[in-house]
Every structure is written in C-alpha cells, then in structure tokens.
C-alpha cells in the first residue's frame, strides 16, 4: 500500500534531545505533573523527545495508568483463594480476563466506561464505547457474542436528559446492532447527580476454544509488527494541540477532532478478519488500539514480550497527512488493531487482509534489545524501556478520609423523617403506591430502550430484557451457556461505599443465580468523582475494599474492569457508582429460569426475610429522601439463596424466579405478573408477622438476599425440604391465577394487569416520545 509523501516536520530526535537539554517542553499542557516530568527525566537520563513526551503523557494519564487507584485495586488480585483461581485462565492485567467453562470452552468479558465522550456527543460517545470494549474482547482471541449497557442519566424531566438519552441509546444500538451482537441487558437509572456527567458503561462478552486464547505480547526476535484496520487520524488528540510545536508546516489544520466517530462496519469486518487470523494461527500476539493508541499498543506489546520492538512511524497509514509523529502516537482513531506475525505467516496474513479488504501496514519488528525504538524516516525519535511507559508509571497514595458529613448523612433515616410523614396504610393508598412505584423513572419498563437493540442476532439469546440476567448459549450441541448481569446502586454506595459496593456484587450475583446460572467471575467499572478530593478517594478506597472482600466471600474472582474518575460537575461528584458485572455458567441454557409466572395454580414462595430497610430505597427516592444506611449485607445468605435457586432450576423445582432488589417485593410481584401477563393472588399477613414488619414495609423495603419463585404443585414438598435443609427462610405467599387478570394482594386494592402495564410502560414514551 502506498502512502502519500510524508509531511516534513521539525523532528526532535533522541540525538537532538541528548544535546539540547535546555529545550522547554509542554509537559504541563499535556497533563503531566512536575514530579512526573522529573521522573521521566530520571528514567531516560535526558530530556524526552517530543514523541517520547507524547507517549509518557498519555500512558501516565489517570485513564491509562490507574495511578490513583492502583494501590487499592491490588486487593482484587490479592484476595483470591486457590478455589477462585481454579477456572481463571487469564487474570487481571490482560485486555480482559478469561474463565474456563469446561468442554474446552472459555469465556471472556469486560466492562468499561465511556462517560465524558457520551456527554459531549451522546451518539458517537456511546457508539465508540461499544466499539472499544468489543475490541478488547477480540484481542483475547474470542468471538464477541453479546453486549450490555449500564446507563445513568440525569433527572428524567431535565431538558438535557432527552438529548443524552436519544443519542446514547441510538449510538449503542447503532454500533452494537451493526456488529451483529445481541444486547442482552443493562441498566437505566435517572438521578440528578448524573446531569452533567452521565454514565455510559459498556460490557462485551466473547467465547473461544482454549487453544484460541491470545495475549498482548510481542515475542520472538524478527517477528513483524503490523497495524491494521482503519487509518490513523487526529481523533482524541484535540487537547494535545500543544504538540503543534513539533511542526513548522503552516498548512496544518488548527483543529483536531474533539470527538471520535465510530465506523461499526469497519469493526464488524475487523472482527471477522481477526477470527480468521486466529483460526489459522497467523498472529503471535495481538492488541487492540484504544486509549493512547499506538503509544499503548507498542509499549504494552513490547513490555509484555521477551525482547524489544523497533517501529518506523512513517509507515502508519494516515487519514490526515498533517499529523506530527507525537500526534500519530497519541491518536485514538477507532477500529485499529496491532499484531505480531512471524515472517513465515506474512503472506497468509496479507491474504486474509485482502480477502476482507482491510488496510494494513508493516511497521517494524520484534527485537532482542529490550528497548522500544521508534523511528521517523529512519531517525530515532523514541528510545525507551517499554516497561517504563506501560507499567512503571506513577502510583499515588492519594490522601483519603471519611467525609465529615458522612455521620450526619447516615443518621438521617427515612423512617420517621418528614418525607415519611404520609406512609401509605390503607388498601387504596397501598395500591396507588405500587402503581406509583412501577411507573417511576427507575422502576418503569425499559423497552423504549431495549426495542432499539437487536436481541436476536446470533440465534443464541436464551434470555434478555426484562429477565434478571442475559443468557447466551455458547455450545449449540450441549446447550452450555453463560448468564450475565450488571448492577450498581449509587444511593446505597453514597450512604456507605463499603457496603454499597458489596450490595452491587450481591445483586448481580443474585440476578445470575436467579436465572439458574452458577456465578463464576466478576468484572467491574468503578465510576467515581475526583481522586484528588479526599472524600471521593475514601469512597473509592472503601468501595474497592468492600467489593474485594465480598468477591472472596462469594468465591467469585474479579477478572478485569475499568476505573473512571473525575466524574463530577465542578466540585460536585456523582454518587459513587461501582458497576459490577457477574458472569455465571449454565450447563444447559434450556434450564434457564425466566422471571414471569405462567402456570395457573403454581405456588408463589418468598425466599428470605424482610426488615425495615427503606433508607436509600426507591420509595425513599420517590419521596425525595436520601439518608441513613443501606440494607444490611449478608453474603452467606446470598450464597445460600443462590444455591437454592440454582439447584431448584437444575432439578426442575421452579418455573419462574425473580430476585428482589430496587423496589422490593412490590416491584418483583408486579414484574413477575407483567412478564407474561399472568396474575396471582398473594397474601402477606403471615410473613409480615413472622418478620415483624407492616404490610407497607414488607412491600417496599429493600432487604437483600430475597427472591420470589413459582413452584409447581408437585414440587412443593421437595422445594420446601430443600429450603428447610439449608435453613433458609421461605414462605408460601400466594398462587398464580391467570383468571384474575390482576395482582391481588390481601390488604391492597386489586391491581388489574392492564392498568399496571399502562403505568409501567407509559413512562419512558411520555418523556422521550
């Protein structure tokens, strides 16, 4: 492939840098701190060249180096038992972790954030969020099989929310649908704290045979380094225009794109092309290009390998020929991959590229020098130890302390507050409360979103919206499959970050078990405010400590994730939002349990116990109250409940299961009825008495480790025995009854399903059309 004549620049070579120590460099403009710049001087033993400065500055950014969170994140790797390692084929540190599914199958999944780009330009920001996480999955050697999209936007009635909502949802759909990846779940939370800082997280999951696992490393002297996919443009370097000082060419455009535009078609082709490379074993190592582009790919590949790497930068195919070397190194153009190929495989590699019509260029080769050398027209512009760029970046022990306001916040309980002055008590008020709850922004039906997503493509989707987890078949012959759920509750985490993070895990774990899957692995996306704020840093430290402890207790290892900091408007941080994704395994997806009732006469059981835990609840939220302490965490109970749900599903003891989370029992009952439009008669007196709570509390409290299941008559004895044997609270609270066409709860006015559905489904269309 030919390149237009390369632009001429005032190239700052390594040789030049060595003899011109006095040159002023724009390190501060590139986001480096004084101490960080001094560290670079020390590492190199001279001043960096412009290109080296570009690389260090992007790779040592918070986003790439995890410098504020690294010290805390270590707990995820440390709090791991032998049992937890058993099925972990690839752990934290690679593009995504890999978990063994058995039968030679492996699964990889990861969740990432694309928050601030999605605020600036919701469509493209969200679209490229999907694109980026999918490339992480491809680079592990896997075929991506599904995506999910946990979202958090501002107040539903704020004028800017519609802009973000329309754009982000269309972008996620536009990109994911075009890749042929079913969307199998996500979240949608509206809260004013996210108004100027919406959260757009994206999860992708992929599957592969064990032998296809690929890692990001460049090994074997003489192997060739190739860049393929889209051409490199000025994307993502808008802020780094200071590098213009490299150039003496006046024709250079003054502007670099502030946002990246995704090309899902290019990515779809890239997926197929990579899978063909893997199938014929044509690449030794592979790395996607995400944040920090070529800087990241070359330094990570080289430092994970056994030698070094030499690369000629003028070989990079460009979309914009005015880019300077530093800009090329920093560019975040989408839909690109870098691979290491043995000389014998070059021809075969090129044949695959040509078949898929993918552009590629050979940049250089793996060496045994231990150095990463980058040249521009043969002149050395980068000569570094790649580890110092990719791994040995700065690490900060940021100060943190429990916020001064935390005690007061926790003392402000909902129970007895002004917001709690008119607690519904009559049968009419309780019915109205249930209706209000199911139509509220956070609890309402989300199909306005999900119907813009292809859930069917691939033909392996066994469960998706609105069930508790998405379930994807992996092996068509055996029915082996995986279940996934993502959860987080920013209000709980605000009230208590340690417990809040544990509750996020507990809920995702419970959702996976509810569909009958055995929870196996965790990925997390930690969305927090500024780490330079000791209050926020405390929230982050507590959340990581809580989550890592809980993972150990539930025996589910964290296999990867992402930290997104500085999510705040001015000095006001978002609620700490640790989004936790749990992946589980189903030996046969035919056994998956949906959330809705179907069969008349089946008994409805409530599993678990209820306490007065309304602090941070959806109900309190509807009444404008946020204070107190979140529901109590009981991981032992979560584990036992999980076992019951999984065994009951495996042994055919239950036909439907739905966990209780936000909105409590009221939400769960309504959702189970609306799922297939089959009603029930429910009586809660005995349970209320057993747990010592009133009917309202029983319906709206958000106590954890609870679920409702429907049990066929013939299985009731067996089911009861199982719960009793495990010492787990269970109570028969009703019976499925399609004839009522309503949800009948003793002490609550009858809730006709038609009206309930109208309330549930009307909300998003009302605001978003």
């Amino acid at each position, binding site marked *: 492939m030919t390149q237009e004549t390369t632009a001429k620049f005032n190239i700052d070579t390594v040789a030049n840098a060595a003899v011109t120590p006095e040159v002023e460099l724009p390190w501060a403009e590139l986001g480096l701190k004084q101490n960080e710049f001094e560290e670079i001087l020390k590492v190199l033993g001279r001043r960096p060249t412009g290109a080296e400065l570009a690389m260090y500055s992007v790779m040592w950014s918070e986003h790439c180096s995890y410098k504020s969170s690294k010290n805390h994140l270590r707990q995820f790797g440390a709090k791991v038992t032998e049992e937890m390692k058993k099925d972990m084929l690839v752990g934290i540190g690679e593009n995504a972790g890999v978990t063994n599914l058995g039968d030679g199958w492996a699964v990889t999944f990861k969740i990432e954030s694309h928050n601030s780009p999605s605020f600036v330009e919701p469509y493209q920001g969200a679209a490229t969020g999907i694109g980026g996480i999918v490339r992480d999955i491809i680079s592990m050697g896997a075929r991506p099989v599904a995506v999910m999209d946990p979202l958090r936007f501002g107040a539903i009635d704020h004028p800017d929310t519609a802009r973000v909502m329309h754009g982000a949802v269309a972008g996620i759909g*536009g990109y994911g649908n075009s890749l*042929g990846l079913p969307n199998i779940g996500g979240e949608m939370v509206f809260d004013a704290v996210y108004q100027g800082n919406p959260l757009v997280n994206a999860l992708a999951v992929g599957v592969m045979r064990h032998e296809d696992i690929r890692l990001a490393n460049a090994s074997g002297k003489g192997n060739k380094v190739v860049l393929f996919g889209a051409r490199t443009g000025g994307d993502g370097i808008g802020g780094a225009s200071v590098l213009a000082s490299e150039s003496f060419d006046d024709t250079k455009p003054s502007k670099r794109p502030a946002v990246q535009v995704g090309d899902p078609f290019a990515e779809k082709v890239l997926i197929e092309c990579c899978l063909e490379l893997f199938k014929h074993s044509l690449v030794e190592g592979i790395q996607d290009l995400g944040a920090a582009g070529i800087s990241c790919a070359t330094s990570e590949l080289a430092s994970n390998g056994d030698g070094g790497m030499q690369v000629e930068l003028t070989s990079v195919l460009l979309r914009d020929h005015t880019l300077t070397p530093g800009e090329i190194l920093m560019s975040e153009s989408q839909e690109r991959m870098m691979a290491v190929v043995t000389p014998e495989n070059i021809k075969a590699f090129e044949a695959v590229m040509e078949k898929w019509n993918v552009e590629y260029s050979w940049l250089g080769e793996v060496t045994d020098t231990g150095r990463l050398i980058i040249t521009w027209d043969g002149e050395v512009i980068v000569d570094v130890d790649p580890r110092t760029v990719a791994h040995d970046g700065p690490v900060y022990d940021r100060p943190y302390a429990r916020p001064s306001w935390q005690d007061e916040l926790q003392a402000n309980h909902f129970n007895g507050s002004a917001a709690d002055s008119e607690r519904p008590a009559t049968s009419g008020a309780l019915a109205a409360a249930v209706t209000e709850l199911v139509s509220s922004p956070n609890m309402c039906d989300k199909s306005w979103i999900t119907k*813009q*997503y*292809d859930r069917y493509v691939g033909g392996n989707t066994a469960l998706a919206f609105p069930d508790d987890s998405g379930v994807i*078949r992996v092996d068509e*012959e055996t*029915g082996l499959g995986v279940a996934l759920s993502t959860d987080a509750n920013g209000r709980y985490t605000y009230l208590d970050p340690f417990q809040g993070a544990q509750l996020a895990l507990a809920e995702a774990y419970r959702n996976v078990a509810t569909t009958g899957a055995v929870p196996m692995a965790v990925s997390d996306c930690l969305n927090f405010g500024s780490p330079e704020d000791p209050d926020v840093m405390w929230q982050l430290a507590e959340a990581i400590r809580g989550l890592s402890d809980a993972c150990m207790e539930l025996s589910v290892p964290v296999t990867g994730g992402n930290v997104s900091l500085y999510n705040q408007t001015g000095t006001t941080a978002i609620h700490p939002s640790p989004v936790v994704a749990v992946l589980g395994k189903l030996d046969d997806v035919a056994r998956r349990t949906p959330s809705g009732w179907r*069969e008349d006469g089946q008994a409805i059981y409530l599993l678990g116990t209820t306490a007065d835990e309304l602090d941070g609840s959806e109900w309190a939220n509807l009444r404008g109250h946020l204070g107190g302490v979140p529901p109590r965490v009981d991981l032992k109970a979560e584990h036992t409940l999980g076992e019951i749900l999984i065994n009951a599903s495996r042994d*055919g003891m239950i036909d439907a299961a739905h966990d209780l989370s936000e909105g409590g029992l009221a939400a769960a009952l309504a959702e189970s009825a609306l799922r297939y439009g089959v009603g029930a008669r429910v009586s809660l007196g005995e349970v209320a008495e057993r747990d010592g709570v009133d009917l309202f509390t029983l319906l709206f409290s958000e106590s954890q480790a609870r679920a409702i299941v429907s049990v066929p008559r013939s299985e009731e004895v067996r089911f009861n025995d199982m719960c009793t044997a495990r010492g787990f609270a269970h109570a028969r609270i009703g019976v499925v009854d399609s004839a009522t066409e309503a949800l009948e709860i003793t002490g609550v006015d009858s809730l006709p399903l038609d009206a309930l559905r109208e309330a549930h489904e009307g909300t998003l269309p009302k605001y978003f059309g």
Partner: protein
Amino acid sequence: MTELPLIGSAAVADAPLSGARIGVVTFPGTLDDRDAARAVRLAGAEAVSLWHADTELADVDAVVVPGGFSYGDYLRAGAIARFAPLMGKIVDAANSDAKLPVLGICNGFQILTESHLLPGSMVKNDHLKFICRNQVLRVENSNTAWTSDYTQGQEITVPLKNQDGQYIADEKTLDELEAEGRVVFRYVGFNPNGSRRDIAGISNAAGNVVGLMPHPEHAVEAGFGPETAGEFSVDGLGFFTSVLSQIVGGK
C-alpha cells in the same frame, strides 16, 4: 406440571437426507448468515456458504441473502452489496428458466430491491428508530417457493429488527403487486415502520424470489426466538421447509 421451560435442541443434524444444498451469502457487514445457515440445517438441508466476491455461483438449489448491514448500509441499505460479483450471478439464475429460488431477508430484501429483482424500495422507518420486536405477519400468498408450507391467510410470529424497513413503491406498482398476488406477507395488528399497505414481504412474478423485512431465521428453535406469553414461535421454519420440499420434489 413439572416440565422445564421448552427449549429445543440445536444439535447439528447429521448429513441431511434431502441432499438439498441451500446457499447463504456473506457480504462484508452481513450479520445473520450463521443464523440463516442454522435455519437451513434445522429444516433438513445442507447450508453452503457463498462469498460475495465469488464469480461463480456454486452448485446450489436455492439461495438465501441474509440480513445485516452490508457495507454499513451507509449509502443506502443494500446499495453497495448489490454490485457484488456474486449478486450478478444470483440475479441471472433467478431470472433464468431454472428459476433459482432466492430469499432476501431484511438487508437481503433491500439488496434484492436495489438489484431490481424485486420492485420498490425501503426507506427509514417512519419513527426513525431501529426497532426490534416480535411481529405477527399474515401469509397472503402460500404459493411461492418459500411459503408453500404455510396456509393462505395463516398468521405467523417472527422477529423484526431494522432501521430502514419502510417499504415504498409508487401506487401503480403497489396495485400491480396486489393484483398479481405478489404481496406475500403483511403486518398484522401493528405496522412497525410505516410500510405502504402494511407490506412486509413481496415476490417476483414467478414466485421464486421472495423478500421480506422480518426475520424467519430467528424463529426456528424453541427457546431462542420470539416468545409470547411464555410460548416460543418456530413459525419461521416454514420458509426453509417450503423451499426444501420444492427442491426435493423437483429432483
């Protein structure tokens, strides 16, 4: 009753007894090719992968042009794919005396209209959004190569998922299609995209070429397709068994 939720087995059948070979075309950006191939296999035929750049049409008894976003659908859905070397062969074979059965699903339908194998065109959905839903269709013509296993007027449920699904044609063409019984499927209950006269799918005059926006290949296995009140539809299988009986019958 203690029955488990119904999910069929997708185990790949052994070599099909029928001996029928049905081609499934892949373009860059095609998404539902593997699904179409699965449907072909579940119906009892052999699925043969066809590559858009091939200059010869392999020895196949019928062709499915599956859904997706060929070339990103950036210019117009199907506009670029239509010029693929293999499409020329498919058009010739469909128009030849042999009347090769061709089924275009979603993007495949759009490619067939761009190729002028079928009249009219698709534009953006009237609501301008991508839509994915379970759609009820009425079979208006059970005499085509792809619908003979249905009964006239039968209602079937299959998924629908698209961005540019609004079928349009001028009034004269629409009248002609109606008069000649070439409206093969109509949306029932709800028109999901503003298509003229609720048209979901049409055929050519000879009935060997059928195109439709909804996705029959996604309603062939209990457990993985459209579900209404807990029951799964496998209504899409009829497309593939229809063409199979015609092929086997004709052999």
